[in-house]
């Protein structure tokens, strides 16, 4: 998870959502997929917040 990029994480998240919406996820994998999707979601949010803070810092540095 540490090495994944925001873009890759977001793409994977999107695919899981699509699969879920199209009922293409087997029930056996549902919990696992849901957990993965939540993990990706958290990663994306954290990453976004970190980058936002970094950007805000660079603006304040001037």
């Amino acid at each position, binding site marked *: 998870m540490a090495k994944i990029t925001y873009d890759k994480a977001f793409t994977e998240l999107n695919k899981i959502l699509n699969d879920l919406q199209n009922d293409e*996820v087997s029930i056996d994998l549902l919990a696992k997929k849901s957990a993965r999707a939540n993990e990706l979601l958290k990663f994306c949010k954290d990453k976004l917040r970190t980058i*936002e803070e970094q950007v805000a810092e660079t603006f304040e540095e001037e």
Partner: protein
Amino acid sequence: MESYSLFEVNEYIKRVIALNFEDAFWIECEINQINGNRGNYYLELIEKSEKSGDIIAKASAAIWYKSALFIKKKLGKLFDSILQSGVEVRLKVNVNFNERYGLSFVIEDVDVNYTMGQMELQRQKVIERLKAENLITLNHSKVLPSVLQRIAVISSETAAGYADFIEQLQSNAYGYDFQIGLYDSAVQGQKMESQITESIREINDEAHLYDCLVIIRGGGSKLDLSGFDNYNIAAHIAKCKLPVITGIGHKIDTTVSDLTSYLSLKTPTAVASYLIDSNAQFEAQIIEMGRGINAEILHRFDSDNQWLNSFREQLNYLIRDRFSSEMINLSSAQKILRNSTDRVIERQSDKLEGFETLLKVVDPKNILKRGFNYTTTLNGDFVLNSKKAKKEKELLIHYHDGQTNVKINNG
């Protein structure tokens, strides 16, 4: 043949001269030498051939103490200027012959206007010649550097004018540093011509060391300054490799050397002021340029800064916009994830419920409850038809709440 003693002859000559030169008269000549001694002056008078310049006549003369006092009173400061070697003079003389000292002119009076006129005549001739040789404007075509710091000076080291000049330069208010190369030369008298022209030749050889040549001499009578009307000096100035600035005499004097120089100023101190002002002007230009450059840079900084600031705001806005839209994406993804997962589970549980209902419907227990039952042998084998039932003696009938034994009557 009769012979005479020398004294007798001289006595005779004396009588002849005294008879023939009763009254004083005026003569025109040039002073070749003059020496003063205890109030008396002893002169050597000459006349030169106009064509060759050779001496064609020569005589001794004297100004006795009393006459000298009279002439000094009449001429004032001009006395020394006129009564010096090389000057054309008109003199009122008595011819005197002394048995012991021989022939001598005794000078009683000096005609100032004659000398002045001769000078002016000579001056005009020199100017005409310089014009004919295109030397009047030659030095004007030199270029005076913007900064004048390395100054070749022709002057007399002991002259008051030189001291004033140096004093003025050194005490300049701007603190400019001047490097002076003095070429000590007589600025009046017989040696003046040769010394000044020699100095100009030396300076030409070292012209790369200097920005300009300054020729200065403090005030004096018109006659004192007449040396600068000399053709050779004026021509050397005209041909000098450096621009020549003259500061000769007082306010109203213009010598021929002033005419041929690059720039003629009235006094040595005026030259010093000019040098200082010229440098100050250059410095002012530089300072002005510096201000201009500074202002231009500040202006550019200002406009660039404004542009950068607006760019920064724009950038900030765009980034925040991007973040918020990304956050919205993630939030909606979260909702979709939640909903989709829930729906998948919901649909699955609906299916399962359907199955359950169906299973309940087909569950044998429920069928039995509704009044159906089934039959097995005592061993538990299903008896599904009468043919099989007829083969058995006893059967078990199964109900939803138990079973009963029945005996078969095959009779």
